């Protein structure tokens, strides 16, 4: 057998199953979703068609753009808070904890909550933020308030808190990795050249950890953008997110074509986010040599 033939054969032996599987169970589903977004709703179900009505409806009815923007706002807030809390934590683990063992242990402590049921993590916040919840109980006990407040739960703030809580570990992990990868001699070089610790942080450490921030932020943004658990559990009447609408198009509203079109828009949005972040990331990675 010729060397080239042998190569081809082993390639196909390895790759045909993954390729076929991916095409059948992933790529075709995405494509068929795209196709269905051009179908027509026809009571009580829907029929194949090719028209842009669904997209026109999504772009013209302010109810949808309002929800998309609200969802983006919430996802952006969640991302911002996760960075604000996750970065110091990662920094603390990498630069303040001197013992390798303790660092690994604490790192695992950050990761562990990720593995507790997603639903339960969201739902606990209902217990904490409720009128009868832990937060109100604590404030009452401390004498800060004398009537339980109902401002904590069933609103967008509750969703932001819950999602931030859920996604902090996703943020800490890549930032931790990025910080850990910064060679210590770059920090020393900066000090050697006269920069104090704060200046070193701003000018060397922070820029060199952007790749980690971008990776964590992308993940957090995309996943919280698509979340439908928080609105159900802790969101209030004003907490409808894109995923809730999507869910209802495939559920109550029984308008799969419209839902598919909305999903296609989310798909495109996520691709844009991924593209942008990989641009930033690539710039960052090049700079890490």
């Amino acid at each position, binding site marked *: 057998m010729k060397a080239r033939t042998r190569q081809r054969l082993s390639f196909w032996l390895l790759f045909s199953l993954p390729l076929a599987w991916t095409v059948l169970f992933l790529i075709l589903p995405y494509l068929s979703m795209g196709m*269905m977004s051009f179908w027509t709703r026809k009571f009580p179900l829907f029929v194949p068609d090719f028209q842009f009505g669904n997209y026109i409806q999504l772009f013209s009815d302010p109810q949808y753009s309002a929800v998309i923007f609200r969802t983006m706002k919430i996802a952006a807030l969640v991302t911002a808070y996760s960075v604000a809390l996750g970065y110091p934590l990662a920094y603390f683990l990498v630069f303040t904890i001197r013992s390798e063992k303790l660092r690994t242990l604490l790192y695992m402590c950050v990761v562990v*909550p990720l593995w507790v*049921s997603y639903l339960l993590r969201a739902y606990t916040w209902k217990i904490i933020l409720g009128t009868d919840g832990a937060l109100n109980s604590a404030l009452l006990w401390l004498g800060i308030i004398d009537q339980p407040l109902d401002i904590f739960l069933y609103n967008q703030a509750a969703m932001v808190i819950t999602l931030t809580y859920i996604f902090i570990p996703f943020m800490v992990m890549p930032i931790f990795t990025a910080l850990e990868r910064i060679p210590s001699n770059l920090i020393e070089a900066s000090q050697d050249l006269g920069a104090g610790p704060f200046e070193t942080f701003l000018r060397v450490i922070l820029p060199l950890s952007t790749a980690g921030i971008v990776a964590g932020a992308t993940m957090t943004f995309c996943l919280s953008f698509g979340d439908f658990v928080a609105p159900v559990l802790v969101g209030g009447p004003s907490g409808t997110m894109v995923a809730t609408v999507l869910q209802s198009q495939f559920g109550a509203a029984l308008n799969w074509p419209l839902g598919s079109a909305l999903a296609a828009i989310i798909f495109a949005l996520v691709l844009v986010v991924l593209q942008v972040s990989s641009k930033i990331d690539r710039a960052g990675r090049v700079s890490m040599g």
Partner: protein
Amino acid sequence: MHKLMWWQKSLVGVAIGTLLFLYIPVAILILFSFNDSPVTSFPLSGFTLDWYRKVFANAALLQSLVNSLIVALSATALTIVIGVPAALALDRFEFIGKRLFTNTILLPLSLPGIVTGIAMLNFYKQIGLPQSLGAVIIGHATALVGIVITQVLARMEKLNRNLAEASSDLGATQVETFFHVIFPNIRSAIIGSALLCFTLSFDEIPVTYFLTGRDITLPMYIYSTLRRGITPEINAIGALIVLVSLALILSSVTMLREKK
């Protein structure tokens, strides 16, 4: 590196606060699993183990747990069967569309699960794959295979390329090389990513939501229970999940970080 400056102190403060923030809810979950009131609100009313007893007496919950185990185990097995050869092929061969393939297979990991779930629901229905645990297994395996591929690929890249060549240099065929040389060196990456897939599949909601039929998984059970109003049984099962995940995470994190 000598004394901490004000800004470093506040960083440390935020960091410790965040660590606590991560654990308060977990603590509350565990606390309420021992509280003897069906309503999860303060003040606590008394200690009980009833909720744990109820967990073990609740046939529907236990059935959903079994279903989840079946789903997670089967999906994980599939991700290995598909992911490992894919990673080997991606590592060894250059071909057209390689980047496209890698990006596509990773898509479900960043795309909101609900979109993937909808797409699958839609298409699986058209190819006559009814909503069922089987569909959920296929959906999970497809959505998660990217994890196995990336982890194994990363390990393969770190693995000295010469090892495979050395093996064939010493007379081993490709199959022998895989089993004697490649596999032992990527085993921990496979196990680590398998554990990760298992846990993610076990906890998966959006894809399952659309693909599950009358047999439901534990998260679906919890989801519908939560929608119907909470019962502290859920706190008990949550506390148990914390315990089990702790064991799983510890082993998988060690596996994945094991080799530099």
